[in-house]
């Protein structure tokens, strides 16, 4: 049977094919990815998009968690200062209940207690990045204003929650009224009561007021646990999210990553095939009957 007398087309096709194999291997090696465009593996490319969406969302959760962390820490340390200040008020109450103090000494204590009220109002009006921490969700309103002997709450009882993972959210605040003006544990009320009692010099009233302040203090310490818990929860959340990120990255790699050692092998195979095709071409193409005929 007659064969195609011109092998150059086949030879060129073979050379081109080995070149294409080399290029594919090179592309995979240099990008580290097996899937460089959707057509390389449509299902993997689509899955990678969903995976990357999840990764990016987790990054955001982590970022939101660290924003929350900063805010919660500020709130927590503010409350810590309030507790310290209230402890001073309790000692002042104990001191005033002693009964051996002069009027002027008591007057001094009254002024100190009044100073403590102002301090606590200031602490209760603490803000984080321009938003009041203890105003409920009225974060643009100064939560507590003092006029005369009364402290008024201008915030609301609203709370916010932030999604810190898929399907998990974290309450991020406690309203100022719940913290500072809970009926029965009213911090400003009990402090004012103490000031009034010291002013009057009535020892039993002072004892009552002191125990009211100390009750409010215990209550506030109890409320502070909320912030501690929230911070713990954020820590746990961050740990969980970080390990999920690691999982997703490894899934990503399984989906679209190139097996580098395999690709390197493929590359050297393609190179060998390329050299073989070239060597064959060099042998076959120049062959001609004319070379064997006398030239005269």
């Amino acid at each position: 049977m007659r064969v195609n007398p011109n092998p150059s087309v086949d030879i060129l096709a073979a050379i081109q094919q080995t070149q294409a194999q080399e290029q594919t291997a090179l592309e995979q090696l240099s990008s580290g990815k097996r899937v460089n465009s959707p057509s390389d593996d449509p299902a993997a490319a689509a899955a990678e998009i969903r995976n990357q969406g999840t990764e990016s969302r987790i990054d955001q959760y982590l970022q939101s968690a660290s924003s929350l962390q900063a805010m919660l820490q500020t709130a927590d340390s503010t409350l810590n200062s309030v507790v310290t200040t209230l402890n001073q008020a309790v000692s002042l109450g104990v001191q005033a209940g002693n009964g051996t103090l002069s009027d002027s000494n008591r007057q001094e204590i009254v002024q100190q207690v009044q100073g403590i009220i102002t301090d606590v109002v200031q602490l209760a009006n603490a803000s984080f990045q321009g938003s009041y921490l203890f105003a409920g969700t009225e974060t643009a309103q100064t939560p507590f204003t003092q006029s005369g002997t009364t402290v008024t709450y201008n915030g609301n009882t609203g709370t916010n929650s932030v999604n810190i993972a898929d399907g998990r959210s974290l309450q991020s605040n406690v309203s100022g009224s719940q913290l500072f003006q809970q009926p029965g544990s009213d911090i400003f009320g009990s402090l004012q009561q103490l000031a009034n009692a010291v002013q009057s010099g009535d020892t039993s009233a002072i004892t009552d007021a002191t125990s009211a302040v100390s009750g409010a203090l215990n209550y506030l310490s109890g409320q502070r646990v909320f912030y501690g818990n929230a911070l713990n929860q954020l820590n746990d959340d961050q740990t969980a999210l970080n390990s999920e990120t690691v999982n997703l990255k490894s899934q990503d790699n399984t989906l679209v990553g190139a097996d580098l050692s395999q690709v390197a092998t493929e590359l050297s195979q393609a190179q060998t095939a390329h050299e073989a095709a070239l060597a064959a071409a060099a042998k076959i193409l120049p062959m001609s009957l004319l070379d064997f005929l006398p030239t005269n």
Partner: protein
Amino acid sequence: MGSLTGSMLIAANALLVQQGALDATSNNIANSNTPGYSREIPILTEAAPVVESNVTYGQGVTLQQIASVRDTLLQLRLYDETQQQNNADTQVNYLQQVENLFSNTDQGIGTDITAFFNSLNQLSTDPGSVSQRQSVLAAANNLANDFHGTVSQLTGIQQNLNQNVVQNVNQINILTGEIAKLNAQVADMHSMGQDGGSVEDQRDQLITQLSALTDVSAIQTAQGLTLTTGNGTPLVVGNQSFALQASLDSTGAEQVYSQGQNITTSIQGGQLGGLLTVRDQFLPKVFDSLNSLASGLAANFNAAHAQGYDLSGNPGQAFFSDTTGSSAAADFSVAITDPSLIAASSDGSSGSNGNIALLEAVQNQQLPSGQKPLDSYSGIVFSVGSATAQAQSASQASALAVQQVTNQIASVSGVSLDEETTNLIRYQHAFQAAARVITTVDELTQTVLSMGSPTG
């Protein structure tokens, strides 16, 4: 009875015939690299013998014809494979352009959707913050811009396809015109018992070019070849060609007409078929998916947004412009520019983030297509990728098929230089021998003439 004159005539004729054969060989060698050239062989036959008293005298050789060696069936297969290959290649070319719009996993509509919802999550940590509200608007505008960018690039590809449809139709018309002329010549030559030779080579070459452009079926008739498109619309009948026309329809798509009839949907093969497949079957699906993603996302988000309150305590107004229908993705835009209008609050207080949870939930809410927004986008990427992959494997398969048929054709019709060299030697020897016959007969004639002369 044989005669010296007879031998001389036979030899003289042999010289001419061997020259003719050498001519054919020379022509083959000259055209050994000419595309579409079919090798020619001299058809030598014995001349009619003369019988004299029971002795049959051969009368030498005649050169009956110089005939091209071709296999018309292989040629028909070549047309078929060529149109399939060009169809697939054209699809690959355009699908890869579309694919490029969806290849980058670090940017584009998919990342924008996630980034937008991420900005909302960030806002929920400080819902009153104007700068974080600004970031939400910026992320939403990014998404809108990428919708617009993708749509406008797809539209660009569509326009490109349309221009190429017109160009292809023009090329088809030029080719069918030329084929009709050559067809008439070939038919004439065949009817006179002549070989089509280079005219037929040229015509076949043009038909191969034509089948690169569209699906052609060729039927041999008494008037020569009849060429039709796949559904039977005539392109060339005998010496007559039928031009196609391209004209814009109301949607701005070029339609192909033959003699007043719209044959666009029946064109399946060749480059033209590939262009039309991408333009009329593939791109509309991508546009539809993008549009339903854009309109569904806008509608779901606006519904959630309306349930909240903005920074001033007013009910949330539309966040995205209302977009529906075939221009949803192109019209997708953010309706508000004032960051305080983002309805983050669930109770009207400025620090509430109660509605953001609802807004964030939109990313997990089903669109009318039944998919979540990001899944809907990854669905688009999947369909673009798999269409491209399919076209690529079709292209590889048909390239192989074309190569095989071309090989087969070359094994029948291709010029082998070794073969021609061998023939060259054969004809040279025959020529030399015939010349020797003439010399010998000449000497014999001299001998006869000098018979009886004293010097003999």
